[in-house]
Structures are given as C-alpha cells and as structure tokens.
C-alpha cells in the first residue's frame, strides 16, 4: 500500500458521481442489434444527455452481498469512518436500476413460453440483488414499429400479463422497436431510467438518514461523519449538488468534532481532506470560487497543526503538500472551464505552497529516516494486510479498526513506523518538488508574475542540484540569472551564482566555472572578501591548468568524483582556449575603450585609449590586450602583448605594465594613421579582447563587444553623472573610473582645405537672363595643389522642379536652353601653385522665380606627411550661396477707343487702340533693345506698327509705354472672344557688356470681345472751329447689315452753335450703302464747346441706341476766338 501515490486522492473521490444503471440481457459481442443498442447508449454522451454511467452485465452477474441490516446500534462500536470500498461500490458495483433486455414481439408465436422465460430472468436478477433497493426494469426489443398506444389491443393485454408475470409495475416495462430511430428511442429510454435512478438514490438517502435516531454521541461519533458523507455522496449521485454541498459541509464540521489523538490523526486528516476536496470541487462547480478558497483556507488552518506522530512528521507535510496540489488542480480546472483568476489569486500560489511542503517533507524525511546502515526493513512487514488493502481510509495497516487512544501493540507500532520511514527513504522527493514547482512556474507565467517565476525557477535549479542533475540545474539558473542581473539584485544574483559555480565545479565544466568565478569575484558579488579570495585563487589555478579546490557545501563523495573529472579534463590536450563574452555579465575586470575625439582628420593620427580596472581581491596579470576595429587592417596596430613592449604604449609605469592592481585604473593608449580610403567612413571598435592565462597553460579571452562596458556599467555611469563627487577636482595622472565614458566610434574626415573660394555677382537674378557669377579660387597651401576641380551649379537635394528650371553654362555669349544641366560637375582647373588665383565665370539661367541655393565645390589632391608617412589627401571646400530670382518688369496691356476711353469690347471694322506699359521691377537699370507686336489673324494693324521704346533704358520703378492702332476684321456671329497676339520685349541688363545675349520676354496679349454693329456713324469735321466762321461737318452713316435700314435722325439745338442742315429727317439706307449728311456749324463761343447732339434711332434695331452710336462721334470741338478786329464785338456780346 505504501506507494508514491499513497497521498493521491482516490479516483472514485475525484470523479463526478453519476447514477449507475446496469444493463443485462445484451449480447454485445455476437448480436449486432444488441451491439447497436449498446453503442447508442454509450456513444456521444454529451452534456445534454442525462448523467448516467451504463454498464453491461451478464444476467447471472453477482452483485456485492448486502449485509443484514442492523436494527439496533446499541452495542455497535464503529471501526473507522469510511470504508475504502464504499464509494466504488456505489459508483460501479451496486446499480440504481437494473434493466433487463429481452427480444419479444407482441405477436410472437410462442408468447407464453417467452413470457415465462422473461419472468425467470427477472427472478434471477432479483435474487442476486437480494436486500438492495435496486429497481428492475424490462425492455422488450421488438422488430416491429409499435402502433400508437391504445390501438393495439393485443399489445396492451400482453403487456399487462407480462407485468404480472414478472411482478413489474407498468412504468418499468419498456418497448424498444429496433427501427431507424434507434437513438431517439434510446434517449427516451435513458430519461426514464434516470428518473428511476433518482428515486433509488432518494430512498437510499432516506435509509441512511433513518439510522440517525439510533446513534448516540459518545460511541457513534464516527458514524455521524460516515452517514453525512454517505448522504452527501448519494445526493451527488442524484445530481442534487446544492444539498450535497450542504451535507458535505456538515460532515466537514463533524469530522473536526472527533476526538483526535495520535492514533487516529491520519484517519481524521484523510477524511477531512476528502470532504474538503468535495466541498471545494462543488463550490467551483457552482461558480462560487471565493467560497472554495475560504473553505480551503479554513481547512488548512484547522489541519496545519495536526501533525500527528512526530516520528512520521513527513507524512503530515506530504499530506499538506497534496492538499495544496489538489486545490491547485481544482482551481486550474475551473479556470479551464471559464473562471477568471487574477495575479494575486491564481493556482500558482497553491502549487508553490505544495512545493514548499514537499521541500519540508524532504527535509523531515532526511532527518527522520537517517537510519544506520545496519537497520533493515522489519520482518514481518507490518504494512502487509490480509486483503492487500486497508478496510478504512487513513488507518494503519498494523492496527486496522483500532479506535482507542493508545496503540494496542508497542512492538508492532515501532515496526510499522520503521517500515514507513524506510519506505519514505525511497520516495523521489526532488522529482515531486520539481514537478510542483514547474506547475507553479507555468501559472505565474500566465498571471504576469515574472519575478515569482524566476524565484521558483531558482528553487527548481537548486532542487536539481540536490538531485545531482547539474546540467538541468545550470540550464535553469543560467536562464534566470540575467533577470536578477538586470534588476541589480546583487544579493540574489550572488546566491544563484554560488549554486551555479558549485554545479559547474561538480561537473568540471571549465568554461562555466570560469564565467561564474569571474562574476563572483567581481563588484556585483556580495560575497565576503575571503570567499572572493578563495574563488580567485581557484580561478588562477584553473588558468594555470590545475585542479581547483572543492567548493564548500559539496558532499564528500561528489567532491571526490569531481576531483577525478577535473584531473581528466586537465590531462586532455586541446580545448584550452576559451572566449567568454563578458558584455552581459559583471566580470571582475572592467573595460572601457574610447577614441579621444569623435572625429579625426586624415592627416592626424587616430588616438585610442583602453581603460582597464580589476575589482577582484588580488592583482591579476594578463598577457595580451587587443582591440578589434571595423576596418581590420588597423587591428595589428592595437595590440599590446607581454613579451614585446610596443612603442605605442604611452604610459610609462614603474610597475609591471600587464598587471591589474585592484581598484586602480590602467590606461593603454594606441595611435595609428588612418588610411586615405577611410575618409568619410566611421571606424568602430567592434571588440576588446583581454587574454588571461598563457598559451602554454590555459588561456581565456574576455571579450567585450563594442567599446567595453558590462551589465552594470551603464547604470553606474548614470549614477556617476548625478553624483556630487564628479564635480570634485581630479588630480593629474589619476583617472576617476566613473568619469570615463565609452566612445566606440570615430569618423575619419578629410583634411582641412587651405584654399579660398570667393563669389562675386549682382543679385538678384532676373528671370530668364544669363546671370553671371564669378568664382575666384586661391590656393593658400604650401605645396602644389593638384587636380583642382570645380563643381558648380544648383545644390542637389532641393525641389525637383528647380532642377528643371535652372540651367548652368560656362559660355556667357549664348542663351542656354533646356539641354543645359543644373549642375556642372568636375570642371577641370588644373594645378595651382601656392598662392595662385584662378577665376571662372559661370552663367545661370533661371526660368522661374524664387530662391535657389547654388553650390561651389572645389576639390583637389595634395601630398603630405603624417607621422613620417607620405599620404595623398583629397581636400575639398564647399561654398554655397542663395540667389533670389525676380521678374525684370511687369507688362500691362489695355484696349481703349480712339477717344482713349476704356473699352470692354471692340467693334468689327472700327479702329481702336492697344496701349502697353512696361514697368521695371529690377533693382538694376534695364536696357530695352526693342519690342515687337505679333498680332493674331483676328487682329489687324491700321498701319505698320513700329516699336516706340527701342534703346530705352529703364531705371527701377520707371515705366515705358507704347500705343498701337488696331482694327478687327468681321467675325462670324454677332459677338465672340478673340485672341489678340503676343507682345515681345527684348532686353538685357544695362551694366553688362554689349555682346551679352539679349533676352526676349514674351507677354501674351489678352483676349478681347468683338461685336458686330449694324450701323456705323463717323463724323468728318475740321480739327478746330473759329467763332463766327462757318465750318462744314459731314456725318457718314453706314448700313452694315444686309437689310434696308430705316433711320431717324435729329440734331438738337445748342447754345454754342447755330447750324444749317436737316434738323430732323427720316431716311432709308440700302444694305452696305452709306448716307452722307452735311451740316454747317456756326460757332458762337470760343473754347471747348459741345457740338450739337446728333440723335440716331434705328427702327429695326431698337437695341442699338443713339447713346452707343454717339460714342463713335466727337462730342466737343475747340473753337478759337475771332481775330483782333472782332475783339470789341465779342466783349459786347459777353
């Protein structure tokens, strides 16, 4: 019985109790129909089907015998709380309902015989269930589909007779037609079975309850618990979980009312554990997890102190561990079914606690079971029982059923305890602990407790260490170490490292051993100085290829085995070189590397310092220090080795150069000349390697990626930056470690150019002109500059449109076009002697206005000497300038009538004027070379247009105007908008030489509305009149339509004129014809005088008013006064 699973809860306790229904009369092996029926019962038992567990039993199956029922409990003394077989009996052995299957159709030929055979079978079954309340039911398997009830008279008659013969109630006889709808029938059948089963369990509950009145509190305490448990269990079978929970709770409180003493402690705890399990399980099932947790806490509080026999204390801890574990399992199961747990309340805590008790158990076991080798397992075995199992849960095999306070037999008792202790020795404690811990780890991982997880993993690692599975231990410890390192919990890290060191020692893992030692003697370790010193001495031994001393706390045997392993390792040749990446640790040597400047000119030597510092108790010697750079060609220049003291090491020290004294900072400096092809590139420190040990012993390379630093250094640097100490004055030659910062990369930049580039030009640039920029380059170098090249033009990287609208050329005599680029690269200039100066003119044409940045890049090569080495450096100098482009002038155009009145439309064949204004916007004087009018076909000039602004010079803000007389040929329909043409202006800057190209600017003239007019009137009159001198005025009236026009004309009187001619007339003008009207005006007054107004009305075109026509006619005329002789008369008239 003493197996590792002794503490496991029995499966019958942990399962969900379901009503047990036994089926007989089915031959599932040979009869296909029976097989189908049985399959329909067992297959697809989903949650929607009633909870029944079915079993097929033979007709003559023997059921557990029912003991004769006790009528009185007066002299009865119970031997224990619960029999071990009881739960199983009611789950699997005693059915609530027994169903007999029998093939019989209502119209069977041999009905009588079959009926009696069936009755016999029922009888046999009944007999074998003698004394039980188990119900019996009969199912007739029929081939025919039954008729609706009541219609088949034979059936009802025969059913009644069968019931009678078998002594069955009508409710217990069922018919199962073997047809297509088998599953449907089966489901109906099992629902009926379920009802029967419930009735059975109900009567069982009643039966157990009825015992209560016979019990008394003094002798039958155990029975109170037993009965409550049974009632609760039957209620569960009945699926009445609410009541079940109630009864279990009563049972639980009753179990704690029992008198406890050392002999029955285990039994009480076992039962308490069982009942507690049931209660918690039901609480989770009822979705009241808090009740479950409360119950469990209560349970633990009540039972924690019930240790029982001190010699078997490990049993108590084993039991406690199991309690926590099974609660954890229940909790976890509930979560899988939809319960939500939280960070501070999840199954992990219970597994963790279970692991804790398992650890306690292990300790107690080692303490209590430390028997001398001479003690052997007692014979006879007191743990043997006649049946091989216990009668009651939680009792001792050697005194079953014994309920008094003192053990009956002291010898047996001792033997039994010894036997149990011996058995406990064989329990794989570490395995149990590790399993529980890993369960807990899984939970804490799920509920976001990374630190708890790490803590448990440390425990697992330690447990593996105890179990001597060092590989697994190291794997786990290694995994969590970095968490503690990054969180800077040095005390915890030290403890983990110490365990890891022990593991690696016992396995003789040299690399791990060195790695852990390095960290343990370093600054992150909280070990005492003498321990560090011991570890460092061991480390030095390993480096010298010797066997280290054993770690403390190793047991003798393991230490001895480890010594042997180490000796083997030492004797083996090869694998004596290790590289340890220390970046992620806190090793005992700190390293920081820095370039002295973030950039070096190619003609300066690159300087690099490596700072080293040891934190261990004793000085360490190293044999090599090398720095790896991104360009590996420099690597050979950055090495310092013991035998050959390189000239590059600047620091002169009286002490040994390759020895690190604890707490003192050592500087190693390197210097090299960068290669010219590295100009513009970054040089990075990719690694720093420090070699400990020697080639003939064992050598270990400590490797720092980049410029050094380790897991702790960045935080230390941060603290140092905040520190008040950093403001203190540092004496010369002494380097404060914390103030050193890593500079792992540097740029190689080109040599500073000694050349001057100057630009002269007259900004702003004018739109479209060839803008001249003069570049003068002067060499200030001491030697010849070779291969000077100028790259000039639009600076790349600006708006893409600028590239399209900017053109650069060296030829200033021709206008440049789209084919010219925006940037002229590498214009060769040749060599320049020291002090020589060169000028270059560049012409830029900007097609659009706006600001542009122009770049002038002068590059050249030069030979120079650095640190005794000849190098050719390329230097370059950049000059940029921002140039604004503006329009040189504005062109304004307007249309006016011959009377200089503004026109919004013009009339066909009637002359009008085009006026242009050129307003200079340039800050520099403009020279207008010429202008030209290019008319569209829809316009015609009245005469040969000639430029009126030729060779005019415009100062800023000045305006040049021109005027052209034009006429429009007829248009197709009455009105339309027509193009006018273009106005071309040729110009250049006044200041530029005569052969500079002329820029032609085109201004497009606006469109104008042209309208056809039906009638045109124009007057022919002298340019002036004279008082009292008649002047003839001729009005020409043209009909411009294809129709005959009726025209009404009248002349209104005027104070200033007398006139002769037709005052009012109505005439008719033929199509295209012209009518001439002659008037003689006789001016009466001098000065500008309004002419008598001519009114014209068109009868056919009322829209054409006299007003409109009047616009074509002069309205005033200047009248000169009369000659001298007329003076008096005029005065008299005034």
């Amino acid at each position: 019985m003493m197996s590792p699973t002794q503490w496991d809860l029995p499966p019958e306790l942990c399962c969900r109790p379901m009503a047990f229904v036994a089926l007989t009369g089915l031959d599932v092996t040979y009869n296909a129909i029976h097989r189908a029926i049985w399959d329909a019962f067992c297959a697809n038992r989903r949650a929607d089907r009633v909870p029944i567990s079915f079993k097929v039993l033979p007709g003559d199956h023997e059921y557990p015998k029912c003991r004769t029922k006790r009528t009185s409990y007066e002299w009865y003394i119970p031997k224990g709380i619960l029999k071990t077989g009881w739960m199983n009996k009611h789950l699997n052995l005693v059915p609530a309902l027994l169903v007999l299957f029998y093939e019989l159709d209502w119209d069977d030929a041999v009905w009588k015989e079959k009926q009696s055979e069936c009755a016999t079978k029922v009888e046999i079954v009944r007999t074998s269930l003698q004394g039980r309340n188990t119900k019996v039911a009969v199912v007739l398997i029929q081939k025919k589909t039954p008729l609706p009830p009541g219609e088949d008279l034979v059936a009802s008659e025969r059913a009644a007779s069968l019931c009678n013969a078998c002594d069955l109630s009508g409710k217990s006889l069922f018919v199962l037609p073997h047809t297509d709808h088998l599953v449907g029938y089966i489901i109906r059948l099992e629902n009926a079975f379920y009802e029967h089963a419930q009735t059975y369990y109900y009567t069982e509950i009643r039966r157990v309850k009825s015992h209560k009145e016979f019990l008394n509190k003094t002798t039958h305490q155990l029975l109170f618990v037993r009965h409550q448990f049974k009632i609760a269990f039957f209620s569960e079978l009945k699926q009445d979980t609410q009541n079940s929970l109630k009864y279990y709770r009563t049972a639980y409180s009753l179990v704690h009312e029992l008198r406890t003493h050392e002999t029955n402690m285990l039994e009480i705890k076992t039962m308490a554990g069982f009942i507690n399990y049931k209660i918690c399980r039901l609480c989770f099932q009822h979705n009241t997890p808090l009740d479950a947790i409360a119950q469990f806490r209560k349970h633990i509080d009540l039972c924690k102190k019930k240790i029982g026999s001190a010699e078997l204390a490990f049993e108590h801890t084993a039991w406690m561990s199991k309690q926590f574990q099974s609660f954890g399992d229940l909790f976890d199961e509930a979560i899988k079914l939809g319960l939500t747990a939280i960070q501070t309340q999840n199954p992990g805590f219970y597994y963790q606690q279970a692991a804790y008790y398992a650890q306690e158990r292990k300790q107690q076991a080692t303490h209590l079971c430390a028997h001398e080798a001479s003690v052997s397992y007692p014979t006879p075995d007191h743990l043997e029982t006649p049946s091989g199992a216990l009668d009651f849960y939680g009792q001792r095999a050697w005194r079953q059923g014994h309920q008094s306070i003192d053990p009956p037999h002291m010898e047996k008792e001792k033997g039994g305890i010894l036997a149990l202790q011996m058995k406990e020795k064989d329990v794989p404690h570490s395995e149990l602990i590790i399993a529980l811990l890993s369960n807990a780890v899984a939970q804490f991982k799920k509920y976001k407790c990374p630190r708890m997880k790490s803590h448990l993993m440390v425990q697992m690692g330690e447990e593996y260490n105890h179990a001597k599975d060092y590989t697994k231990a190291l794997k786990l410890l290694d995994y969590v170490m970095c968490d503690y390192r990054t969180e800077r919990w040095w005390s915890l890290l030290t403890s983990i490292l110490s365990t890891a060191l022990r593991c690696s020692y016992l396995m003789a893992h040299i690399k791990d051993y060195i790695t852990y030692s390095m960290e343990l003697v370093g600054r992150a370790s909280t070990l005492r100085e003498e321990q560090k010193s011991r570890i460092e001495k061991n480390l030095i031994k390993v480096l010298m290829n010797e066997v280290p001393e054993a770690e403390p706390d190793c047991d003798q045997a393991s230490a001895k085995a480890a010594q042997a392993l180490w000796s083997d390792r030492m004797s083996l040749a090869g694998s004596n070189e290790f590289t340890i990446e220390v970046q992620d640790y806190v090793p005992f040597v700190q390293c920081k590397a820095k370039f002295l400047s973030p950039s070096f000119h190619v003609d300066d030597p690159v300087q690099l310092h490596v700072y080293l510092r040891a934190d261990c108790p004793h000085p360490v010697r190293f044999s090599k220090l090398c720095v790896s750079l991104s360009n590996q060609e420099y690597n050979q220049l950055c090495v310092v080795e013991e035998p050959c003291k390189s000239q590059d090491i600047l620091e002169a020290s009286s002490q040994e150069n390759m020895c690190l004294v604890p707490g003192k900072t050592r500087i190693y400096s390197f210097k090299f000349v960068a290669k010219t092809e590295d100009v513009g590139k970054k040089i990075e420190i990719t690694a720093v390697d420090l070699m400990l040990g020697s080639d003939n012993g064992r050598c270990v390379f400590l490797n720092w990626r980049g410029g050094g630093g380790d897991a702790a250094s960045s935080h230390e640097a941060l603290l140092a930056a905040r520190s008040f100490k950093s403001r203190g004055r540092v004496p010369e030659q002494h380097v404060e470690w914390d103030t050193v910062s890593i500079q792992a990369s540097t740029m190689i930049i080109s040599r500073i150019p000694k050349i001057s580039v100057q630009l002269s030009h007259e900004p702003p640039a004018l739109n479209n002109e060839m803008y001249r920029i003069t570049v003068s380059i002067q060499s200030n170098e001491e030697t010849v500059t070779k291969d000077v090249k100028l790259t000039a033009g639009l600076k790349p990287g600006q708006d893409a449109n600028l590239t399209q609208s900017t053109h650069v050329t060296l030829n200033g005599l021709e206008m440049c076009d789209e084919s010219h680029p925006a940037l002229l690269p590498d214009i060769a200039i040749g060599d320049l002697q020291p002090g020589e100066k060169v000028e270059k003119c560049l012409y830029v044409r900007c097609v659009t206005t706006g600001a542009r940045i122009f770049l002038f890049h002068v590059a050249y090569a030069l030979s120079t000497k650095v640190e005794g080495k000849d190098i050719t450096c390329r230097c370059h100098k950049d000059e940029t300038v921002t140039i604004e482009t503006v329009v040189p002038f504005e062109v304004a155009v307007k249309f006016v009538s011959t009377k200089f009145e503004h026109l919004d439309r013009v009339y066909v064949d009637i002359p009008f004027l085009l006026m242009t204004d050129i307003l200079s916007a340039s800050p520099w004087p403009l020279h207008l070379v010429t202008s030209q009018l290019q008319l569209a076909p829809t316009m015609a000039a009245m005469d040969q247009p000639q430029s009126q602004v030729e060779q005019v010079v415009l100062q800023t803000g000045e305006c040049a105007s021109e005027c052209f007389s034009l006429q429009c040929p007829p248009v197709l329909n009455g009105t339309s908008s027509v193009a006018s043409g273009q106005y071309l202006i040729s110009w250049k800057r006044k200041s530029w030489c005569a052969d500079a190209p002329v820029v032609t600017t085109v201004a497009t003239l606006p469109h104008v509305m042209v309208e056809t007019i039906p009638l045109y009137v124009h007057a022919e009159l002298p340019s002036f009149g004279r008082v009292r001198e008649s002047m003839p005025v001729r009005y020409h009236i043209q009909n411009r339509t294809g129709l005959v026009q009726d025209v009404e004309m009248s002349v209104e009187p005027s104070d200033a004129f007398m006139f002769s001619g037709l005052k009012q007339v109505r005439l008719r003008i033929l199509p295209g014809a012209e009518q001439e009207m002659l008037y003689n005006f006789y001016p009466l007054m001098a000065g500008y005088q309004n002419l008598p107004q001519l009114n014209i009305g068109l009868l056919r075109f009322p829209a054409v008013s006299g007003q409109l026509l009047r616009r074509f006619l002069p309205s005033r005329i200047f009248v000169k006064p009369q000659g001298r002789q007329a003076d008096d008369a005029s005065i008299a008239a005034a």
Partner: protein
Amino acid sequence: MAVCIAVIAKENYPLYIRSVPVQNELKFHYTVHTTLDVVEEKISAVGKAMADQRELYLGLLYPTEDYKVYPSHMIKNMAVTNSKVKFVIVVDSSNTSLRDNEIRSMFRKLHNSFTDVMCNPFYNPGDTIQSKAFDSMVSAMMVQAS
C-alpha cells in the same frame, strides 16, 4: 512590528533592505523581489485609472502561507512614493493586533526618514542608503530578534 523593511529604487533594485532574523535574509530578499510583480501591476493599473491621486499606500499585497520560523501568515505591505521609490514592509501576521492605520503610520515614518536621506546633499539618488538615522528608525520598527 515588521520582520523585513525594504526600500526599492525606481528601477526595481534595492536601495535598502533589512530583515530579522539575519539567517533567513535571502528568503526575505526573494520575498521582497517577488512582490515587485504585484506592485508593478498595481502601479500600472493605478496609473491608468487615477494618475493624480495622492494615495501612495497600496495596502496589503497578498498573504502567503509561511515558514517554520514564523508559523502563520506573513503580510506584505507596500507603498509607492511619487518618485516611484517603493517601500515594502513584511509583517508577521501572528501579530494580529497590527491594524491598517498602524501600518500606514509605519510607512509615513519610513517615508519621512527617506525624505531626510534624500535631502542630504552628500547622498546620491540611486545609491544604496547608508544612514545611521535611517538605520535606527528602521530598527525601531523591526521586531527585536530574540
């Protein structure tokens, strides 16, 4: 009375940690370290809900079963300061007389004393606390090791 008092830096490393009895020190270190899980979770939850709340006391974190030296529950308490420095007090809860407001007053004392440490111009924020005044204040709050 407390059995362990710890001050944890913003970056979650210990600035100060002391416990009685000394032989179980490592266990207390682990205990304090694991509480940081819950603290971080609580701070982030509080941070989301009520960023400007002045309540610094996080209350009882969780009770656990415990050790052979101290049978019965241990209660861990927690407070977080505005600078995200955390205080952890581990109390032996067999001492049932300890009430919430008493714990609060312990934290207040601890906080005041910590403020004094921070005001010391020779103290670097982020360094471990080495102050006699702080030490004696902590000692006064600790269970006297018998």
